[in-house]
């Protein structure tokens, strides 16, 4: 697959049923990849060959999309996408939100937030939008107090009150789950918690619920957002099958956003 192929795709968009088109979608980990796998047969019926490109970090899927190497991606929430657009003069646009990854606070030794002792170490992800999200989650439940946002994100510098003197240790997103043994508490997405057998419903001390902007969203570019295969993809990803799949396999972990 390369750029020219993508262009051909665009040329053929008038007659998608007659010729098979290839739709390349970048993604990272389950359940994102599982949802894409699930809808693949349905798209095939429509003559759309869904090709999933699994990448290993959370910048490349956007870089690849902006460079037209893929036609869409599915791994991020809208604020993260906006940050990318701002910094890279890219024109990525949301197509449709799919699910809320119910961010939560987990602790191995403690049953509730109140038990967490003075000066406890809380591990959070080390990228700026997830730092923002982790702090926002804690602020939402009154664990800390944050001042008015100065930039697009909250940072540790925005903490005005931290009554129990928690220490925030920043580690790589992919490392969060490993920190469950090490830190007193970990703030992470269900995608990383589930391999540990943890679910937001039964194990999280705090969760962010669905009252937020952080739904994992199918993203495309401004120039192909209206392209029929993309729209089709959006449709099948918000179908009842996907809802059923999420509810059966990811109860409270990935809450459908459609």
């Amino acid at each position, binding site marked *: 697959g390369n750029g020219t192929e993508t262009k051909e795709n665009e040329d053929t968009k008038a007659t998608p049923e007659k010729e098979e088109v290839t739709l390349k979608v970048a993604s990272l980990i389950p359940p994102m990849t599982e949802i894409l796998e699930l809808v693949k047969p349905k798209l095939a019926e429509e003559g759309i060959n869904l090709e999933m490109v699994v990448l*290993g970090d959370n910048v490349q899927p956007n870089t690849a999309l902006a460079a037209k190497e893929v036609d869409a991606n599915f791994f991020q929430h809208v604020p993260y996408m906006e940050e990318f657009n701002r910094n890279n003069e890219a024109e990525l646009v949301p197509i449709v939100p799919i699910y809320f990854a119910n961010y939560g606070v987990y602790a191995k030794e403690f049953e509730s937030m109140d038990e967490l002792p003075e000066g406890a170490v809380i591990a959070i992800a080390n990228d700026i939008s997830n730092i923002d999200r982790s702090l926002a989650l804690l602020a939402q439940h009154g664990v800390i107090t944050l001042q008015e946002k100065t930039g697009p994100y909250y940072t540790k510098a925005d903490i005005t009150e931290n009554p129990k003197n928690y220490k925030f240790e920043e580690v790589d997103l*992919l490392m969060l789950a490993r920190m469950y043994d090490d830190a007193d508490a970990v703030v992470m997405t269900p995608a990383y918690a589930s*391999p540990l057998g943890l679910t937001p419903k039964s194990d999280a001390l705090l969760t962010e619920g669905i009252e937020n902007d952080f739904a994992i969203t199918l993203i495309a570019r401004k120039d192909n957002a209206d392209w029929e295969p993309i729209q089709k993809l959006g449709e099948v990803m918000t179908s009842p099958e996907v809802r059923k799949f999420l509810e059966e396999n990811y109860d409270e972990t990935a809450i459908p956003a459609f």
Partner: protein
Amino acid sequence: MPAVLVQYEAEIWKAIIETFAMVGASIAAAVLIGLPVGTLLFLCRKGKILENQMVFSVLNLVVNIIRSFPFLLLVVFLIPFTRLIIGTAIGTAAATVPLSIIAIAHYSRLVEQSLLDVPKGVMEAAISMGASVKEVIFKFLYVEARSGLVLGLTTSIISFISYSTIMGVVGGGGIGDFAIRYGYQQFKTDLMIYMIIIMVILVQIIQFTGTTVSRLIDKR
């Protein structure tokens, strides 16, 4: 065969082939470009037959710059270049570009070092016989340093395998990435361990071959 291996058999084969492709390309780059670069680094040094402070400094700097980059950022920096020559910046083929660049920088240092261990007398014999630069290199330097060059390449290849495991970032795939994705991110520990065993076997074979070849061709 364990069930989990049967289940993922096709993907494992794919990963193995991807690793071979990426590492193979790096080896080719190391030999075809790294070897000449390392040789130039040696020959342009003070007191050597092509003594040239300019060329030495420039090559030295370029190699150092490549080696200074955090590998992840090198991959990112090279994206436009990769796209230029491969047509895309993601996938196994694209991953070979940054890997090859690293391979060149890595091996050229080891080549330089091996050549520095060639006894001066051999160089003198070559020069006194009126050997051209090309002849000095191929008929004397490489002959006398060959066991070190092979061992250095062996060490380098094993480093390339290690570097290839990071190429998942741009969708390069390979055994290492497979192990990271399934084992590390999805906690399929058994699968991860099998993948690591494959890596160990691969590395062990390469090291054994390298050690043996280098011993057989060392007549000093």
